[in-house]
């Protein structure tokens, strides 16, 4: 377009510059702080120039804290969340879109409703369920009177206990009760041409063959987007891992990092904490750098 837009372009550049500084400023200060010693920080406060203690602080993270071990927990949680969400959502969306059933609409609505009340809102009672996974079933059997029947038949009512608190499974499984992935795959399946399905049927493909040979290869980029999104959300979880893990070697790295701050009194050892923050953010940040295309695509898909 031939138009004199100099003034607005200058303003736009300035705004973007301010935005970039807003994002990078705290990150840069994290780097410089992590490269000074605790004593230096106490004397000089926040310094914009880098020092030479960076690797000393990183080594202290490895020798003095449980963060390396906790990063493995974070990796297990993030990978477990991402892989399980991808598989479960893909299968349930397949059942909802490609099968003629009376319940598909209802089940989809019930799954999608999970988006309204996130885990961070219902963590108190989710904690109770995680402390005994069978408690809803026990309660259901008690309430319906079925347990009296079972007690009469087998001599004892059905009552089982299984706590998943302070285990990796307990950190991951409650995160899976979320409808976003199913929604993403359903939207994607609905955009595929119907003729594809008819052609596959005509060639004699059954439901499993259609799933494996046609749907799976086509869904590759939806898988990638969902994987990146859930991996990042699994890695950055805070409230759930905080309550669901009770020992330091079960906590995730983000929780362990926050535990480096002493409860009261002294100025926290910020150089050590910032070195830890850098270490903890390396995995998700390099993921964003490598798979940014899928992240942006996933964010856009999740709004539709």
């Amino acid at each position, binding site marked *: 377009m031939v*138009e004199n837009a100099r003034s*607005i*372009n200058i303003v*736009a550049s300035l*705004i*973007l510059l301010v*935005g*970039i500084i807003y*994002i990078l400023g*705290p990150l840069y200060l*994290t780097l410089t*702080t992590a490269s000074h010693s605790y004593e230096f*920080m106490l004397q000089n*406060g*926040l310094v914009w120039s880098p020092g030479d203690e960076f690797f000393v602080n990183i080594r202290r993270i490895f020798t003095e804290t449980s963060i390396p071990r906790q990063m493995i927990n974070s990796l297990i949680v993030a990978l477990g969340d991402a892989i399980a969400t991808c598989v*479960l959502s893909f*299968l*349930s969306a397949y*059942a909802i879109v*490609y*099968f*003629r059933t009376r319940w*598909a609409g209802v*089940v989809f609505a*019930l799954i999608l409703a*999970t988006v309204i*009340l996130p885990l*961070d*809102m*219902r963590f*108190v*009672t989710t*904690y109770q*369920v995680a402390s005994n*996974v069978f*408690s809803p079933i026990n309660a259901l059997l008690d309430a319906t009177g079925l347990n009296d029947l079972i007690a009469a038949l087998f001599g004892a009512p059905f009552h089982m206990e299984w706590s998943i608190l302070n285990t990796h499974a307990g950190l991951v*499984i409650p995160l*899976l*009760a979320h409808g976003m992935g199913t929604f993403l795959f359903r939207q994607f399946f609905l955009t595929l041409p*119907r003729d594809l399905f008819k052609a596959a049927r005509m060639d004699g493909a059954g439901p499993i063959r*259609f799933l494996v040979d046609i749907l799976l290869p086509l869904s590759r980029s939806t898988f990638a987007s969902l994987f990146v999104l859930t991996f*990042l959300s699994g890695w*950055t979880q*805070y*409230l759930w891992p905080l309550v669901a893990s009770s020992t330091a070697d079960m906590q995730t790295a*983000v929780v362990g*990092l*926050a535990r480096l*701050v002493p409860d009261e009194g002294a*100025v*926290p050892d*910020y150089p050590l904490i910032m070195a830890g*923050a850098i270490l903890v953010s390396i995995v998700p*940040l390099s993921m*964003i750098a490598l798979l940014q295309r899928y*992240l*942006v695509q996933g*964010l*856009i898909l999740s*709004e539709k």
Partner: protein
Amino acid sequence: MFLGSTMFRHRWLPIFLVAPLAVLVFLFFYAPVFQAFYWSFFLERPFGGGSEYVGWDNFARVLSDPEFWKASGRTVLFMATASSLAVLVPLILAIAADRAVRMSLPARNILVWPKGIAGASIGLVFSFVFNPFVGVLAPLNSLFPGIWNPSFDGFDAYISLIVAHVWGNIPFNFVILLAGLRAIPHTIIQAGAMDGAGPWRRILDVQLPLIMPQLFLTLVLEFTESVTSAFALIDTITKGGPGGATTLLVYKIYLDGFSSYDLSGASTQTAILMVFFILVATLQFVLLGRHINYER
């Protein structure tokens, strides 16, 4: 949708496919939601000490507690200010990045980075940056003693939270709004230019109305997000202080349930929070159903 002939007919296979997720959703979503409401009518003793039906007593107790009302008021205030800023800032950035300027490319890359940094990590960084003794504003304090102290002044603590919240929520809102802006056909922009509308005028009269759906959506999602994601920031920056000035409802529920072991009180407050969010979601549904959408 699909016609009957374009779908598989199976009795058991679809049930089998949907069952794993359905079981998890039942156990870890519907059971906890139900239990929160159920427990709000019982007096629960911690460590499995039994329970006793008390009717509406828990609600009476929570609703007559001034701390509950303060925390709710703060939550609503935080929702209103944090979410509008967390949409407004990315909106301005997206409009700027939509122009063909040299800064646009690096900005589109860098503004997504916060998505990979946990709320608690950036909370720790901001707690350092805003530290009154060693932080960025420490020089200001030596000029005007006591002008900035988030650990004594509730307002300063509140500002720290908002700055950190907006930082962390730039990526999602920026990406959505920029995608909306880029989807506007070039011909419409050109038509506006032909009619004599300059670039500033076109922002107000062409671009903003056309991205109303995206704008509305980000605001709606930001409501829930601001209430729940605030937890990690509060726990790392202010610990709910000073003197409870930044104790939002989610943080209060956490303290009541996991520090004071008041399970009934925590469940009752969870139930009230849930009812509030179900109402918000219904309202959104009604409004979204009306389609703020323009022909393109």
